[in-house]
């Protein structure tokens, strides 16, 4: 199955930002789709908590306790949305793309790829590396450009 980029269901989009997720069954590290689709079907507070964070980022909000990227060299394209469930630190990792370089260069889409529970203080470096790998993957890039055409 080809790589597919899907806008977050029920999510808000602006001229500047959008949140999406990647479906890529062949890649075992790409796990976000299952979580997002399952959460979206639920009617619990966890969905509201996460979708509110998506909205806040899309609106241009800044709040490290909800989401953030990394300034660290080599990991500039990695992004994370954070929330807690039953005292466990839930994390959705994503990759930042600028797919409309000609028509709207400021537009950023965060493509979520991985859901995991974080243990300890520091982010698993594998997630950051995976984000950069996906950023450079030609199939992913093409799928993002198809979902968010530069026209």
């Amino acid at each position, binding site marked *: 199955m080809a790589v597919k980029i899907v806008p977050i269901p029920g999510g*808000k989009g602006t001229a500047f930002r959008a949140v999406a997720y990647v479906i890529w069954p062949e890649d075992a590290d790409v796990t976000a789709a299952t979580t997002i689709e399952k959460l979206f079907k639920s009617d619990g507070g966890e969905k509201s*908590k996460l979708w*509110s964070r998506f909205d*806040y980022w899309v*609106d241009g909000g800044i709040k490290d306790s909800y989401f953030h990227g990394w300034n660290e060299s080599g990991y500039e394209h990695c992004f994370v949305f954070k929330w807690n469930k039953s005292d466990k630190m839930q994390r959705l990792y994503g990759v930042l793309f600028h797919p409309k370089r000609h028509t709207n260069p400021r537009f950023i889409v965060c493509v979520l790829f991985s859901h995991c529970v974080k243990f300890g203080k520091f982010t698993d470096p594998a997630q950051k590396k995976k984000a950069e790998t996906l950023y450079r993957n030609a199939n992913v890039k093409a799928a993002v450009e198809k979902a968010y055409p530069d026209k």
Partner: protein
Amino acid sequence: MAQLNGHWTNESVKAFLYRISFDFVTQLENMMDADGVKPNELAKRLGVSKGRVSQILNNPGNLTLRTVVEYARALDVKVAIVAYDDDDVDNDNGPVNPQIFAACWERSGKPTDFFSAGMAVAVTGGVEIDARWSRRDVPAGKLDPEMAATMAQIDSMVWQSVEDRGENAGTDSD
């Protein structure tokens, strides 16, 4: 995938309520961060446990108006309930974040009455226009003709009054 028209807050009143409550507590947290107020300090001011404050900040879905007022006042700020028309009748975009309203209000010089907000005109010692007749942003051509005629009549009264009073007359506020 579940089918949903428009924004996720269309799913239920509960979802919409969660979003606006989330926006409110995010505003509070930003204020607390800016002022260096820790949750235990806020709990002390409110006379509640730190756990209760954390519960409100982390799970704001069941906020009551009383709690909203109590938490805002504990941080020395006020709160308003604002109804607005953002031309999004199907709610494709969800609620407008209250920080946007607050920023616009601050940029407008923090008006605290209809006069200083330019919604009503008062003439010194003369005609006072009730805020009921405040101007509204109505797209060209969509203003009700009767309302347009009434507004024109009021404008005429106001400016006639100003002219009659010469230099000593003026508007308290424009």
